[in-house]
């Protein structure tokens, strides 16, 4: 099982990670963060293959990925 941790408070909403995810597992949260943007979230029940594309694109280093 691979877990994607997204720091939703630091996310600025550029959404570059969403565009590169090969499994379309990232989406936009419904609620604003403290910066006033809707941060990226890992979709419920979605799958992660651990490719790191999202973390490689993220200009704000908001994403960490772990394998259980």
């Amino acid at each position, binding site marked *: 099982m691979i877990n994607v941790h997204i720091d939703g408070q630091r996310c600025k909403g550029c959404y570059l990670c969403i565009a*590169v995810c090969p499994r379309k597992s990232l989406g936009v949260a419904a609620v604003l963060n403290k910066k006033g943007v809707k941060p990226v979230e890992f979709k419920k029940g979605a799958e992660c293959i651990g*490719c*790191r594309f999202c*973390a490689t694109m993220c*200009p*704000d*280093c908001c*994403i*960490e990925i772990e*394998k259980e």
Partner: protein
Amino acid sequence: MEKIYAHPQSLYNVSSHYCAGCGHGIAHRLVAEAVDELGIREKVIAIAPVGCAVLAYDYWNFDCTEAAHGRALAVATAIKRVRPDNVVFTYQGDGDLAAIGTNETIHTANRGENLTVIFINNAVYGMTGGQMAPTSLIGQKTATTLKGRDPALQGYPLKISELLAQLPGVKYVERVALISPAEINKARQAVLLALRNQIEGVGFSLVEMLSPCPTYWGMSAQAAMGWIKETMIKEFPLGRIK
């Protein structure tokens, strides 16, 4: 728990002042990852520019200093000569490196100083409000070229990396683009090589990164990546120049 991607030790876990989708954040991370991989966090000394990256020292968890606009390579020369065992690099924008600092850039390269340069080409002056940079493209609309850059008035995009590659003191020059996971991984390899060159005493090494500025290009982050791919790379081709 095995980390597949972990926050680099050389990057503080803080929010940066950069705009959403700004390439500086990607470039900062790549440098931090390279410093971690080479195990030189205690040896590295960075010189931040004047420009959007002026506060880089708030983000990198290693020794940093700051130079007057364009003078980063003059300061780097002094630090490296006094402390030759340290790994010294500058991180400079196109306005800093290729406009106000052209003199320092060319002469430091021509002296063949054993330094590493990370050169961020975003085709505008970001910090001051999106004015034309020497690297702005022909026809590019900026705060000071409202109808687009006109070569008859403002000259041509300056390919400073190609110019520097002519100098015998320059050992390694590569242009990369921060536009996709594959290209960003190539950029990481280029940063590693440019730092390794210094450690091995090879000499002056420069990595130019085509980097998005969605704010002053007036585009979404995604569109800015597309503009680099479709338009900017035509003027600034990727790959190893020297």
